[in-house]
């Protein structure tokens, strides 16, 4: 009988551990993320999408604007996945590079601005919750994540320019470097 009871206790314990983790997150992470989401959603609504489109049109000529400033602002304003739609202002040749950079900004900024990519928040939050458990501030990690991202995502976009040229030669095609806009 005792064996059955301890077996049952062990079984329940499997889920109790998970429940403790869950309710701790519900008490700490959920309210904070929710408040941030509301504030960010409001700011984005008030600023409007048109302004970021204007910036995008002017950013296609310069690599620093193209792979650092625009994807950072775009990720903040339009969030994942609509940040990729700004790529339509780029020449064909640079679209893969913009994508490469923007997709990474959807993560590296996500620590401070969780509205950008809430569906994949746990890439950051999974690791950061360990930091929180130690009683250390998560913000330090989030800020450095953002800063390293700012530099490395730019480099990532730039390197994609080179790999695109390589694949172009491999496949024997040439992508246009001129912006083409129908509308």
């Amino acid at each position, binding site marked *: 009988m005792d064996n059955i009871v301890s077996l049952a206790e062990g079984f329940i*314990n*499997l889920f109790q*551990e*998970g*429940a403790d*983790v*869950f309710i701790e*997150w519900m008490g700490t*992470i*959920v309210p904070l993320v*929710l408040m941030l*989401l*509301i504030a960010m*959603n*409001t700011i984005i*609504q008030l600023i409007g999408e048109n302004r970021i489109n204007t910036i995008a049109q002017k950013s296609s000529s310069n690599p620093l604007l193209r792979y650092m400033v625009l994807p950072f602002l775009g990720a903040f304003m339009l*969030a*994942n*996945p609509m940040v*990729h*739609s700004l*790529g339509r202002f780029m020449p*064909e040749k640079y*679209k*893969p590079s913009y*994508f*490469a950079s*923007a997709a*990474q900004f*959807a993560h590296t900024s996500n620590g401070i601005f969780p*509205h950008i990519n*809430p*569906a*994949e*928040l*746990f*890439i*950051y*939050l*999974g*690791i950061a*919750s*360990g*930091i929180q458990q*130690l009683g*250390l501030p998560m913000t330090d*990690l989030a800020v*450095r*994540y953002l800063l*390293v991202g700012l530099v*490395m995502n730019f480099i*990532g976009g730039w390197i994609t320019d*080179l*790999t*695109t040229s*390589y*694949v172009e030669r491999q*496949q024997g*095609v040439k*992508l246009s470097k001129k912006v083409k806009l129908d509308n």
Partner: protein
Amino acid sequence: MAGKVKIVKGSGGFGGPLTLGIEGKKDKVMYVTGGHRPEIVDRICELTGATAVDGFETSVPEDEIMAAVIDCGGTLRCGIYPKKGIPTINIMSTGQSGPLRQYITEDIYVSNVGVNQVSPVDESDISTNRTDEADREAETVYTKDKKIMETRSEQENKSLLTKIGLGAGKVINTFYQASRDAVQTMLHTVIPFMGFVALLIGMIQGSGVGDAFANIMSPLAGNVWGLMIIGFICSLPFLSPLLGPGGVIGQVLGSLIGVEIGQGNIPPNLALPALFAINTQNAADFIPVGLGLAEAETETIEVGVPSVLYSRFLNGVPRVFVAWLASFGLYE
């Protein structure tokens, strides 16, 4: 050959039934499923006479797509095609979820579809559901489908008081709508994932597997070389598109490393390089879709997919290393 098919949802699925057939230029079934070709694609093509196209290798002009077949677990892809007005068939059971969930509706999306859910239809059964909107009612000052506030805002000469009222109303409404969206996101996207990860962590901790797990994880994620190996594996061009979908692998790896950091088995400053190591495959599965959002041409997608996979590979390990350099002085 050129018949129509009826597609219903599988058990636990969402949406449908959809009735599909070739209409004018729309004669292609595009599948974006990270490499393999689901059986239902062949079945649909057999019944309708449509052509199958691998959306991962090439792209199709949107006006030629009859339907899109995807295997999305609930982040992005399942909303993108419905948003563009393309009927979407998901072989996973995902319902309305992800950031584009408002576009996932029963008249354009059906999920958990297998071969048994696809059946031919007789032409005679089909009736067009779409009827034109009824004629507009004659203009009056107040109409029953508009609130007084909406009527006021359309009037041309507004008094100052009306303007202030409308302005305040607009700001409050913006906040309120933002809050509604945020709560939706938490309920449908963040909390479900939290539940899943908490269960996983609980099972690992409660069953005693945790200690065994720590023995594997700590040497690998507990120093920069191990993290660089994780980053290297995740960025391999033939592997990265398989690890990408929904960021699920990255999120689970992140949570497991988080547990080890919390227990002191991994030094906290390594959290920074770890963030980069578990995500070198970032969006590798999403390249054709993302380029589609950027209105890229077919050629660009054909060049762009391998190009981004290569650049992810070249960048992956250096990113981890730079992040490790940047982690000096963190939490000391």
